[in-house]
């Protein structure tokens, strides 16, 4: 994958992403950080140092071009993990993923990976790491800066950004690059009302027959409006998949919140 933006058009209904029997386990240290000291101590006691978290379990999922798939689920359900597997960032522990096209993830392009560098540097470095060329990024940069409405702040270190400004820049990068497959993981949650509206409009614009969109969100109203398909993930398994209103209704019933204001609200 050398380029994110330039590739031939894909036909509608052609498979964009195919996930088969996907399993993913994280191995984390029981202590805050794995250290030599802790390992040496554990040797004496013979205790295990790692905890295994099963984040995804036998997930099957197909996404076609022309589809806008919403992914819902409680915190820790495995949504972000699934997205990282599809983007090729996390290798699966079991199963197989086939991706037919270029992928861009949001928060992706590693935007903001180095907080002491400016927004501009971070956009460039993130893009270069993702395999774009300098010229490609330069070609997109003005649009990114303009869409994010950050003004002069684009040249300020990213540690001085508010979380909303951070999200603005990340969204702008992902929405400007125009990949075949765009994954947006909870990006709209911290923007203010105006930017939220703007980015929602951009997502609607990006819906097209030769693109596949995957939106991870807790904002049910947004998903009902934008998606034509929704998958509900719970404890690493897909519980239900299908028509948005149906799946979301079932999910809300599961949450026992009914149609309370909190879940419809775009937060």
């Amino acid at each position, binding site marked *: 994958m050398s380029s994110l933006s330039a*590739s*031939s058009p894909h036909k509608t209904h052609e498979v964009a992403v195919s996930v088969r029997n996907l399993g993913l386990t994280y191995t984390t240290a029981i202590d805050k950080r794995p250290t*030599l000291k802790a390992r040496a101590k554990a040797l004496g006691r013979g205790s295990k140092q790692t905890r295994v978290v099963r984040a995804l379990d036998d997930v099957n999922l197909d996404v076609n071009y022309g589809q806008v798939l919403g992914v819902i689920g409680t915190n820790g359900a495995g949504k972000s993990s699934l997205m990282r597997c599809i983007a090729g960032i996390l290798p699966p522990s079991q199963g197989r993923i086939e991706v037919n096209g270029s992928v861009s993830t949001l928060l992706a392009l590693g935007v903001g*990976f*180095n907080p002491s560098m400016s927004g501009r540097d971070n956009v460039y470095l993130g893009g270069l790491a993702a395999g774009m060329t300098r010229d490609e990024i330069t070609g997109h940069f003005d649009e990114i800066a303009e869409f994010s409405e950050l003004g002069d702040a684009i040249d300020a270190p990213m540690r001085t950004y508010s979380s909303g400004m951070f999200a603005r820049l990340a969204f702008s990068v992902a929405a400007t690059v125009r990949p075949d497959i765009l994954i947006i993981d909870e990006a709209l949650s911290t923007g203010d009302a105006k930017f939220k509206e703007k980015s929602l409009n951009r997502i609607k614009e990006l819906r097209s027959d030769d693109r596949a969109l995957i939106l991870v969100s807790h904002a049910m109203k947004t998903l009902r409006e934008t998606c034509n398909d929704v998958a509900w993930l719970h404890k690493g398994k897909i519980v239900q998949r299908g028509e948005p209103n149906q799946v979301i209704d079932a999910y809300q019933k599961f949450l026992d919140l009914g149609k309370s204001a909190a879940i419809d609200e775009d937060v």
Partner: protein
Amino acid sequence: MSTPIQVYEPFKAGLPKLGKYWKSLWSRRTFISEFSKSELREQHFDSVFGQLWLVINPLLLSGVYFILIVIIRGGSDSTRYVHLTATLFLFYLISNSLTGGVKSITAGQRLILNTAFPRVMLPISAVIIAIFKFVPTIFVFLIIKVVVGSEFKVEMLWAIPILLITVLLALGLAITISCINVYFRDIASFLPYLTRTLLYLSPVLYEASELDPKLRVLEIVNPLFPILDSWSSALVHGQMPEISNMLQGLAWAVGIFLIGTYFFLSREREFAVRL
């Protein structure tokens, strides 16, 4: 279909496909140079004072160690000072690669969790930064040599292959230590002791020829020893370094580079789930 299909499957132990890995690394070479540049900029090495510091810092260091030598031996001469600066500056190329490399993976967490790219780019960038910091010290050294009146000879050109060997060793060490730090995060806190010990075990504050025969074992177990010794022969004494010395240094560098890279490449796919 013209866009290639990417397939992600559980990885087997061992190396990824090297041809593909190299291609994806090569296509991101601008990342390495841009990353090094912005890191240096962030450390203010793009300003006049920053660059001045790159020159003053090694001078001060060599000054401090020279005082140490004078006090311990009760006197010294200019050749000793030239030897000290030459070897100390090269030593700092390695030590800066180690300190920059050790946290390169753990500090790049955000990028690693959100972008798919060859992870080895990060320790490589750390070595490039160390090289950027090394270059001005070459000029400092040459000026010192002129001022002291030490002779310039054609044999000094042997320094070039020795420098290449050093860079290979620095790469190997940075890649290895950045990988180890993912599994043992306290390596970073041990590192200052490690580099300090390496400095004393290397022919920097003394010359290899003065070493007590009983301590000759250092020449064999310290990867830096043959390299620094050859460096001093070429640059300070204007002699051709012993071939056996250079070969020994080369063997260390190639060995550490290959073993470290093997570990790194066979492990890097699981870095993201371990950060």
